């Protein structure tokens, strides 16, 4: 199941074992016994993150409990030139926290204190291991919440959110992690403690906070985050609209935006998904619909009533074949339950599923869905399509059986073809899951050599020795050359007009 082996030479076991002993004996004086793991039975839970198809065992796993320990660990690894892979809750879907065989996994899971909450300035200071949802729960009694809500919000940590610039179903209106974080405190690979951004609306110099967002643990290790809290809307209601045609559904999304409405959430599911989730949650979805749109409005009761009426009108004019509006909170949650359970529902249909994360301009939604239908035939695999339609971010779930090597390879090729279609339609290979190890080859398609060289320049500005999560997100020149040769030998060259390789 590990396709990466083709580029990694077989490791020298004796050398790895010697390095492991050296690392463990250097870290032992600064960490309590329970905070340092190196026996395989202890480190095996860390061999992968949420993308289980990519696994590797690290030399050791450190679980520091203070920022000071984080800094000391980094200083030691810096001195020993041992690569470090930071890890949050391990829910990432792109293998961004996959270990390096001759490296250390640095888990921030034990830094999980909410340091302070200030309702007057609408801010909270939290450690990186605090779960996304725990922030909103802790401030709910002030009538506030933390807006970004990735699907994994029960488990994923704010440190991971910063490193992936996570979104969620409400980011069309409320923004990504980038828009909701004021300050990040972290440690550079050499052990120096730094702060990006501040509680003021801007900071001197270049906007380094912006470049930290979504940097996939490659620039600094996050030790504290100051998040922005916003007023909890008094009410939320959702419209569930059915369409008998994918194109009409796609056009309805565009029509809502064109009417000057920014819904709190705007999600789309195709027929296959609707059927799969209905069997799982019994939310009363329209099983005949080719596409279902969920459009949420939030705010004051007056505001919601006004917006729901406007959206209903647009949806009717766009040819919706059925419209239902949630009567109360219970029904709203029921309407959402299917969308939120698309992943487990996919898990019931097949042994494994492979979740993609491309983003395309909204107007191409129908085009891409039709292409995916063609790919299902080409690769002989099913695919469920769920979309953050409001921002064009789509999550096709390719169904396969991981026990069958051939099915996994077809699933991978299917995924790669979807991502290349996203780039071709003017979009991107990843909207919110990150590049990690999974999409690193697709980076060769989306970016030219100059851009990739600039990314390495950014990396080197923070981490000149390239020790912090160095094998993720940004492909090397050699890797892209290798990938280019593979693609050519596999058939035709994608985008032959571009000098990519």
């Amino acid at each position, binding site marked *: 199941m590990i396709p990466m082996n083709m580029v990694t030479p077989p490791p020298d076991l004796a050398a790895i074992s010697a390095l492991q002993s050296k690392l463990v004996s250097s870290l032992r004086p600064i960490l309590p016994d329970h905070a340092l793991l190196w026996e395989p039975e202890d480190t095996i839970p860390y061999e992968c993150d949420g993308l289980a198809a990519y696994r590797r065992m690290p030399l050791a796993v450190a679980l520091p409990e203070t920022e000071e320990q984080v800094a000391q660990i980094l200083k030691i690894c810096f001195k020993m030139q041992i690569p470090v892979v930071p890890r949050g809750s391990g829910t990432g879907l792109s293998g961004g926290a996959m270990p390096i065989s001759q490296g250390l996994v640095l888990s921030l899971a034990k830094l999980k204190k909410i340091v302070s909450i200030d309702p007057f300035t609408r801010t909270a200071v939290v450690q990186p291991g605090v779960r996304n949802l725990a922030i909103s729960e802790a401030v709910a009694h002030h009538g506030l919440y933390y807006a970004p809500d990735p699907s994994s919000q029960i488990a994923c940590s704010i440190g991971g959110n910063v490193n992936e610039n996570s979104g969620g179903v409400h980011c069309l209106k409320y923004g990504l992690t980038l828009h909701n974080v004021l300050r990040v405190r972290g440690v550079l690979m050499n052990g120096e403690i730094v702060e990006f951004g501040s509680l*003021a609306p801007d*900071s001197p110099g270049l*906007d380094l906070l912006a470049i930290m967002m*979504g940097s996939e643990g490659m620039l600094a290790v996050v030790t504290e985050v100051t998040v922005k*809290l916003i*007023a909890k809307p008094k009410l939320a209601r959702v419209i569930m609209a059915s369409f008998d045609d994918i194109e009409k559904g796609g056009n309805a999304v565009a029509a809502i935006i064109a009417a000057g409405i920014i819904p709190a959430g705007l999600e789309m599911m195709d027929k296959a998904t609707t059927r799969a989730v209905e069997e799982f949650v019994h939310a009363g979805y329209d099983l005949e619909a080719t596409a279902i749109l969920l459009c949420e409005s939030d705010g*004051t009761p*007056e505001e919601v009533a006004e917006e729901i009426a406007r959206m209903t009108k647009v949806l009717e004019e766009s040819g919706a074949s059925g419209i239902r509006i949630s009567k109360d909170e219970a029904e709203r949650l029921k309407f959402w339950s299917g969308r939120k359970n698309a992943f487990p529902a996919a898990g019931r249909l097949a042994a494994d599923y492979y979740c993609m994360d491309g983003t395309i301009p909204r107007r191409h939604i129908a085009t891409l869905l039709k292409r995916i239908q063609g790919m299902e035939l080409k690769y002989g695999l099913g695919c469920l399509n769920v979309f953050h339609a409001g921002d064009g971010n789509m999550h096709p779930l390719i169904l396969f059986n991981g026990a069958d090597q051939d099915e996994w390879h077809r699933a991978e090729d299917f995924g790669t073809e979807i991502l290349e279609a996203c780039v071709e339609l003017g979009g*991107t290979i990843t909207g919110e899951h990150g590049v990690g190890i999974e999409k690193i080859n697709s980076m060769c398609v989306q970016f030219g050599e100059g851009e990739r060289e600039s990314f390495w320049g950014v990396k080197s500005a923070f981490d000149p020795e390239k020790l912090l999560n160095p094998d993720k997100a940004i492909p090397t020149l050699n890797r892209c050359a290798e990938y280019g040769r593979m693609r050519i030998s596999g058939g035709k060259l994608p985008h032959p007009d571009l000098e990519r390789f």
Partner: protein
Amino acid sequence: MSFSSSNPALKAFQEQILNAANSKQILSIQGGGTKSWYGNTNQHTKIDARTYSGILEYQPEELVITACAGTPLKEIEAALYEKNQVLACEPPHFGADATFGGAIAAGLSGPGRIGVGNFRDFVLGVRILDGKGQDLSFGGKVMKNVAGYDVSRLLPGSLGTLSLLLEASVKVLPRPATTATLRCQISQAQALKFLNEWAGQPLPLSASCWIGKGMGGDGELSIRLAGAAAAVQAAIPLMSSLVLASEVDPQIAQTFWNDLREQKLPVFDHLGSDQTLYRLALPAACGPLNIPNADSEIVLEWHGQQRWIKAPGDTATFDAIKKLATANGGHATRFKQGSNIDPSFQRFTLLSEQAHSKALELVQARLRSAFDPAGVFATSRLP
């Protein structure tokens, strides 16, 4: 290092950059020159960014506009206005010739910033020429994009010190269905208290401005509400009753907010030749500040997070203001200087003057050399 475009303006840019790199010359990027006084002074050879102009793509239902950096800002805003959309952070023009690229490079935002975020929050993608003359594109035209480092968001506020911006895609928003402005007389401390309390409630608060004399006495607080008609109508009586505010005529209100954005209000007029207009960026928690030597009235925007103060332009005054801002968790800028003030003065708070930022000076220097190894762009403009 291939150059994919045959556009003569882009070819000329590239030649100018490569020649400068070869001859160790420094270039200063300029658009309409409406903000040339902002940032540290520089007398370097200019690149005129206006030669590459025009809107490249605008599809209102995508909420994105892509345009060349040299496009007049008013042309962008006119195109958006036609489709009932806006640059929601309201970047100031400071003159009829302001360009799209200049507004991004300055990174300044107007009254709307407190409700919707700063210009950086809206930038989705850029095309640039780096200091090696390489034609590079980062980000894209979609809201969600985490492929590669977010280089495009390094450009807003970089004052042309990192690369030459060629094109940018920015997110736009629908023009609010309804706006209303309330006004009352209230002390600075009371204004800050109410604004922060309101900001923590589900109210359609979109901008605020308090103008008054320093610490004591009442000043004039203006509050802008924007959003769905029902939300605005419901908020007016609620907020008015708390501060005894009355609604301002919509025409007068619109002029007021625009004049605030463009610094055309009387309070900004007549900067004395020995005076400096200081800008303070401060956390929401910062109460009224006793500014040393402050003259006349001060202006608070963004619920007190941006403050404008006229005071003597000498170094001692700036140092005192800077110290006050830093002690409160913010920073200060010599935004605009009077005609008698030494133009070579450092205008900004330095990274080294901020807590836990010293190590970032080296990071920043390395970042600049990654994009501009020969030092072609006038880096001194923003330390």
